[in-house]
């Protein structure tokens, strides 16, 4: 890889993927805000739902591989904060991967705390990079977290890539069809343990991926 494509090109590619991810998040956010005026959000959500967990798995996998590439192939040493973000990112490959195979959307209760912690650290790391003298008074000898290994488009650095991936994973696992969508009010309290009951009810009510009634559901 290193011989075929130089590191700068690779970094640019990863940065562009990050921009695309951010654009997707922004688009989703705008459609969500307009959900009461436009049906696009429901359309999009319904379309993404069946592949949400596989997509989240792909995001986790690409991010993990990218992270490993940066440290192993590009020889960018991970700093302390990088390591904490890695701890929060790498397990998602297995956790979300297994959930995608099992079609288990309840995985969000595991993934959200994990990516929440990761995103918090990424945010802190990014602030540290942008305002390095704000924090502490001493630079570590070898590898302080303020060193910018990648800086693209005047705003993209490695922790911002991580933050984007954490956010994408969080949103995608949230978009997966839920076992208890028939009762959105209580869905957050439902767990895997009581899923079968919920599913039975859902099965009677017909496929529902969103509380909002949709035209095609009205005519099964």
């Amino acid at each position, binding site marked *: 890889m290193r011989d075929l494509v130089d590191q700068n090109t690779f970094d640019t590619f990863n940065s*562009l993927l990050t921009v695309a991810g951010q654009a997707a998040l922004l688009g989703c956010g705008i459609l969500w805000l307009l959900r009461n005026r436009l049906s696009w959000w429901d359309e999009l959500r319904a379309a993404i739902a069946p592949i949400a967990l596989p997509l989240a798995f792909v995001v986790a996998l690409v991010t993990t591989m990218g992270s490993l590439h940066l440290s192993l192939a590009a020889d960018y040493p991970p700093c302390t904060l990088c390591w904490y973000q890695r701890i929060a990112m790498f397990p998602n490959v297995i956790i979300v991967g297994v959930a995608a195979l099992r079609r288990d*959307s309840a995985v969000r209760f595991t993934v959200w705390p994990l990516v929440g912690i990761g995103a918090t650290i990424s945010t802190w790391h990014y602030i540290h990079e942008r305002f390095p003298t704000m924090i502490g008074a001493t630079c570590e000898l070898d590898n302080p977290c303020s060193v910018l290994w990648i800086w693209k488009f005047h705003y993209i650095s490695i922790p911002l890539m991580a933050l984007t991936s954490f956010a994408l994973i969080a949103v995608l696992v949230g978009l997966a069809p839920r076992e208890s969508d028939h009762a959105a009010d209580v869905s957050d309290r439902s767990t895997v343990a009581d899923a079968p009951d919920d599913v039975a009810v859902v099965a009677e009510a017909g496929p529902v991926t969103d509380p909002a009634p949709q035209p095609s559901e009205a005519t099964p």
Partner: protein
Amino acid sequence: MSNRPKLGDRPTIPGYQEPKGSGSSIPVWAIVGAIAAVVVLAGVIALASSGGDEDTGGVDGNTSADGAPVSEFRPVEVEGAALSEFSGEPNNDDAIGQPAPVVSGANFVGDDVTVGEGPAMLVFGAHWCPHCQKEVPLLAQWIDGGLLPDGVSASLVSTAVKEQPNSNFPPSTWVADTGWNQPVLTDSAGSEAGAAYGLAGFPYFVFIDADGNVARRASGELSQQQVQEYLAEITP
């Protein structure tokens, strides 16, 4: 407990089993295709833009304004025993009172420089360290304003150089921009001068008294008042 799913269980979730019934007019292949298109586009743009290499780093072999060859690394020679690694506590430091090593080398353009003979303040700085980027220009300003007591010298040691993009490389340019007018020692690629003084964290200060012994070591940004206090300890 009987409701707990087994590993092989697939929760029966309608959205998965009947994706066509999910109410979307956007087919899955369209989403996957759109994502694939974005990825391919990103790859094409990255490859297309790789022609213009954004390497901002300078290269050894540059010349200074007056034509002398600039090097970011210079061999150094250490005389005397190395100090222990600094613990981070200036008041509880076993190197205090120990004879400071004397390090001979050169500055960026190759002029001979020797540090470690007291009374002196040594400042170890790394071009990529934001705290050094903040502190060294301040020190230069304070020194220009008369910070140094009579007979006390100050030297900057450029060490731990990293040749990488976005790192404020090269240090020779950085030091010139800080306004530092005192001698500069260019450490070796192995940062031997730094190691000889027990360097631990940037910026790093070593205050050496008139007898050539360590009076104080400190790391991190220091205030003007703090520097003055430490300088007072080594003023002959």
